[in-house]
């Protein structure tokens, strides 16, 4: 496989998610304007912060006049799970030059990680792993910029709710179900999913992070025959 083919593989794996990300981005743009954020600032947040749900919260906190320190802390809490993605892909990116590591870290979102990870797991030592991740990351980045730009330009007109955002969980299902091939992995999935529902009410998506940790612990406990 060539770098270009690996890049396109990453792009293709992400494309179905854009169906769900696009309306999400448009709504972000509209919500940001309604929070009193200037159009240029709303649009630039998408490249400077580049984190879907954290951008929604940041816009709302700014609109509510929350102190800056609280806003930064909340964004950090929401994005904490990305450290786990970082740890997960780190061994595959170890030999890369620093500029590649910086670029891929900037692009490391839920969606890019989800789209690339089945391919990365299939061939962990692939010399083209970074091109796959770059393809997924770039496709999401470009889609997110265009969608938020559309939201900022549309202004107060919220797009009709066609239920397209459901494409995101459906794509995640398509990715995660084939990965569940052992009892330990099934237990990890059931624990993480159940905990995410139970803890959904916790502020700043901390419940999501704790649910992922619970899933990791449960999976390791099962595969380690009772050792955490």
């Amino acid at each position, binding site marked *: 496989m060539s770098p270009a083919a690996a890049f396109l593989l990453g792009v293709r*794996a992400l494309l179905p998610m854009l169906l769900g990300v696009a309306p999400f981005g448009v709504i972000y743009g509209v919500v940001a304007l309604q929070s009193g954020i200037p159009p240029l600032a709303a649009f*630039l947040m998408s490249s400077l912060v580049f984190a879907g749900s954290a951008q929604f919260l940041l816009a709302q906190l700014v609109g509510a006049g929350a102190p800056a320190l609280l806003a930064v802390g909340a964004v950090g809490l929401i*994005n904490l799970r990305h450290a786990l993605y970082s740890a997960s892909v780190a*061994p595959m990116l170890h030999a890369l030059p620093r500029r590649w590591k910086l670029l891929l870290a900037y692009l490391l979102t839920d969606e890019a990680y989800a789209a690339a990870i089945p391919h990365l797991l299939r061939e962990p030592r692939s010399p083209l792993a970074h091109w796959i991740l770059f393809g997924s990351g770039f496709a999401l980045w470009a889609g997110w910029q265009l969608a938020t730009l559309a939201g900022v330009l549309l202004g107060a007109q919220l797009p009709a709710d066609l239920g397209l955002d459901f494409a995101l969980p459906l794509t995640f*299902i398509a990715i995660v179900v084939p990965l569940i091939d052992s009892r330990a*992995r099934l237990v*990890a*999935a059931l624990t993480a999913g159940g905990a995410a529902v139970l803890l959904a009410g916790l502020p700043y998506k901390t419940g999501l992070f704790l649910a992922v940790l619970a899933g990791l612990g449960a999976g*390791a406990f099962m595969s380690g025959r009772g050792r955490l």
Partner: protein
Amino acid sequence: MNWLPLWLACGLLTFAIRLSFIALEGRYRPPSWFVRWLPFVPIAALTALTVPELLLVAGKLDLGAENPRFWAGLVAIAVAARWRNTLLTIASGFAVLALLRLVPA
């Protein structure tokens, strides 16, 4: 509102979180329990992101006919398990969602 410094602070923090282990790789050895936890990251993270989308409506558990996403998600999970095909999984989920929206509850 001075938005640029705030955006930069939030962006740098997010970037630092995403870069953390990528930058540390080879310079730091995580504890062995952490290494055993890591293979479950894709499954745990994607399931934790997805299940609340299927089971919760406005923050409340809803497994009834009023929540078409639950039934559409169940069908999509079955289709994914049987055929392991991304587009088929997405299409089946949307098909069930559309059907349930047509049928008055």
